[in-house]
């Protein structure tokens, strides 16, 4: 399973701020590229991301194809570390269109993989590669003028992303305690073909509970549904000829592909967009900036309740730039609908602890306030945070759109995901199925499992207690 640690610096993001003599590693790419492994064994290079995301403002109107950007990309290097215990994925990236963005010094690979075993990833490879990882992290951090946060991107169900990924999370806390740790985690679905994914996920969850500042859980099912929805809209001709193909959030080569071909490319692009939008206010100007450290500050009322449900709208572009207010308001409504969430959850019918809205484009404070007033009555907020909104306005919209909205919610609707996970775990654990694969790894004991499931149970209980207050507010 591929996994990458992205060291997010606050160095010059835009090309016009590049130093006069650009040296390969000094400048920052916006955003840092993402490599994914799904909960299965497929992967995607995320090359589509690049076209969506890395548009420097000066070339934004140019619009399509990687060629225009190539000149600029050559001088930019990603502030990233790519780690995988097998070589296939990383090699493909290095041979693909993004090869110039990565330095071979930023890679850590092995050959045999982690066998979908959290213990192998965390205990075995963790121990083995610790020095190497720390050294590379330090190097990357040194290149940042001001290191603000780390993004960890991984999946929970396998061995490397899950095990080694959470090992790196621990490492980051030890070595860089002041720096925020944002984790984007792909959670496995019920029909996952990796049998031991519940074990891996629960073991990883304990680490996330204790060492992450913010977690953005993602579920492949949701991404798949969203991709399907977009393709339906294209194929049904609903958008007609007004849709700019290249600006679809999922387009990777300028033509709409059917769902069967490379679905992970499209799905990964959605997550790439999530991170793009998350960092937009840090990269571009706006009348009300929202930085990454503000997200953690406003959305995490208690240290362990740091799981944020995200949604992105719109999913496809509207060719009409002067969008009438109705469409703008629709974007806000969509952000709260079940279909737009990146996990299988329905925030509208659960309890909000806090909610952040980051709007991009020509949207003003009055539009924002009007929509909050409009939507508030249908949402349930916890009693001590009835006006629990954090808002940001970024002037620069994403490529091909006139505006967009990212919503991050700290909401008890994550609870069902965790409860299901616990159930799947217990099904296996009760029968002690496959446990020996884990226990024979040095450093693994039965207590690792019992502590992990306790951690998850406690977390579920905290959400339960909050839900119990719902009727009383």
């Amino acid at each position, binding site marked *: 399973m591929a996994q990458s640690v992205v060291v997010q610096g606050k160095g010059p993001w835009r090309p016009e701020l590049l130093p006069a003599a650009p040296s390969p590693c000094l400048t920052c790419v916006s955003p840092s590229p993402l490599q994914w492994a799904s909960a299965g064994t497929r992967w995607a290079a995320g090359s589509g991301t690049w076209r969506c995301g890395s548009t420097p403002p000066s070339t934004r109107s140019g619009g399509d194809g990687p060629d225009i950007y190539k000149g600029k990309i050559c001088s930019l290097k990603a502030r990233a570390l790519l780690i995988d215990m097998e070589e296939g994925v990383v090699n493909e990236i290095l041979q693909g269109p993004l090869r110039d963005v990565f330095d071979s010094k930023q890679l850590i690979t092995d050959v045999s993989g982690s066998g979908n075993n959290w213990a192998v990833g965390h205990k075995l490879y963790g121990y083995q590669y610790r020095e190497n990882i720390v050294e590379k992290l330090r190097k990357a951090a040194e290149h940042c003028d001001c290191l603000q946060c780390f993004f960890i991107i991984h999946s929970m169900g396998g061995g490397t992303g899950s095990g080694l990924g959470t090992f790196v999370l621990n490492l980051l806390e030890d070595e860089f305690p002041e720096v925020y740790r944002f984790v984007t985690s792909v959670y496995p679905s019920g029909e996952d073909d990796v049998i031991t994914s519940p074990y891996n996920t629960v073991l990883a969850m304990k680490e996330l509970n204790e060492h992450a500042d913010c977690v953005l859980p993602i579920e492949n099912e949701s991404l798949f549904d969203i991709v399907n929805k977009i393709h339906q809209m294209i194929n049904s001709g609903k958008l007609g000829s007004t849709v700019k193909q290249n600006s679809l959030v999922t387009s990777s080569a300028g033509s709409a592909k059917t769902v069967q071909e490379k679905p992970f490319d499209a799905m990964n692009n959605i997550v790439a967009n999530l991170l793009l939008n998350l960092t937009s206010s840090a990269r571009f100007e706006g009348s009300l900036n929202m930085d990454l*450290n*503000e997200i953690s500050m406003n959305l995490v009322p208690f240290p362990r309740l740091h799981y944020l449900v995200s949604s992105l709208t719109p999913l496809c572009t509207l060719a009409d730039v002067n969008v009438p207010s109705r469409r703008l308001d629709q974007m806000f409504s969509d952000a709260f609908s079940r279909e737009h969430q990146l996990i299988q959850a329905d925030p509208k019918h659960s309890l909000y602890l806090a909610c952040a809205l980051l709007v991009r484009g020509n949207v003003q404070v009055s539009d924002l306030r009007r929509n909050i007033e409009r939507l508030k009555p249908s949402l349930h907020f916890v009693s001590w945070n009835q006006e629990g909104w*954090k808002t940001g306005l970024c002037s620069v919209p994403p490529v091909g759109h006139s505006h967009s909205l990212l919503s991050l919610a700290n909401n008890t609707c994550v609870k069902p995901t965790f409860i299901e996970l616990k159930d799947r775990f217990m099904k296996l654990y009760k029968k002690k199925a496959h446990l020996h694969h884990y226990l024979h790894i040095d450093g693994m004991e039965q207590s690792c499992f019992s502590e992990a499931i306790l951690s998850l149970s406690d977390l579920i209980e905290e959400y339960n207690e909050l839900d119990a207050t719902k009727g009383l507010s």
Partner: protein
Amino acid sequence: MSIVTVQLGQCGNQIGHEVFNAICSDVHGTHVLCSKKENESYNDACKERFFCEEESEVPVARAVLVDMEPKVISQTLSMATRSGYWKYDDRSHFCQKQGSGNNWANGYSVHGPKHKEVIMNLVQKEAEKCDRLGGFFTIMSMAGGTGSGLGAYVTQCLRDAFPTSFILNHVIWPYGTGEIIVQNYNSVLTLSHLYQSSDALLVHENDVIHKICAQLMNIKQISFRDVNQVIAHQLGSVFQPTYTAEGGLHYSRNPLGDLMETLVPHPEFKMLGLRNIPQMPENSLAYSTFSWPGLIKHLRQMLIANAKMEEGIDWQVRPPRLGSSIPSSYSTNKPLQFNTSIANLVILRGKDMHSVDLGSFRDPSLYTSWLNPQDAFNAWKTPRAFNKYEKSASLVSNSQFLLKPLDNVVGKAWNMFASKAYIHQYTKFGIEEEDFLDSFTALEQVISSYTIL
């Protein structure tokens, strides 16, 4: 005497820029409605107060810009220069990269001490450029991390370094809903700390200005820029030169000192509200005429009824009958929605202001009993029209204007504090629960003092 403006955080810098813009545009305005000599006098006084000529072609604003992230300051600096009419001193700013994360504790306990020396050096430099320093005007929002936390710390430093100078804090009250989740915590901490070092707090509420934009200015899609421009206009209407004494020959040279003297007789009462009328879209100005009696009548009723703007004033509210000796709010003689004042200042700008009768503002029933109405009320005037308004009347009031908003904010903060939500974010940077409790206590005292007026 000159005023040094300290712009703190995104809000402070955005508003500060609009304020200097408004002042500059007023100076270059064509509808001044007074003699050339008068106009020159006015402009000279204004320039001395806010700008420094130096060797540059355009006036340089007397300001220090502070922010913990670079984007806003760089925008502000370049927008000012591009106007061609004025600019900031290129060296008079300080920024960092990582921001304060909306965390008051981060602004106050971490950034404050760390950058104290650099920031105070910049302030000292600006102060030295003034022939005579009239005091400091800081602009900040209460809701965020830099303006609020670092702003509170800087205010303290100003007080320590300049013990005899006047310090006026311009504070932006955030929208009731939908800016920052921890805004009430940040607000409580800011207000309680400012109260200790500042001479007065001049407050603008985003909700109120937003309504003005919507209902009076007819703006459809209101942006923060629109809000900031209204605020800048209102501030300009207070701080542009005036004659403070009847028959005065010179424009007053000590605006901050005069303000404090007239409005803040007691250190327990530092909350100042501001009202300015008329307020309308620029293209309607040519078609509108106003009479001073009409404006004064409206302004007085806005004061009494605690109206936030010219529309929707409750004309039913009347001052209590004189002679009632029970001063408490439980008294049946004082209707609860009546806004009692400690002191008021009315500023008139424009045509024929000499003839204005301000007797209604001297009515003793408007005020508490502990000041003579003659002392409690003051008027500043100038025949020179402000910012294209033929007549403009402003009211700066030390009264119960801000009692309800203050009570609201403290209530919400307390509600959140009771569940201990978000407290770990503050203790991480050294602000403990006790500090919160101290702040709550301090503000409850202020609320109580204003309530029993």
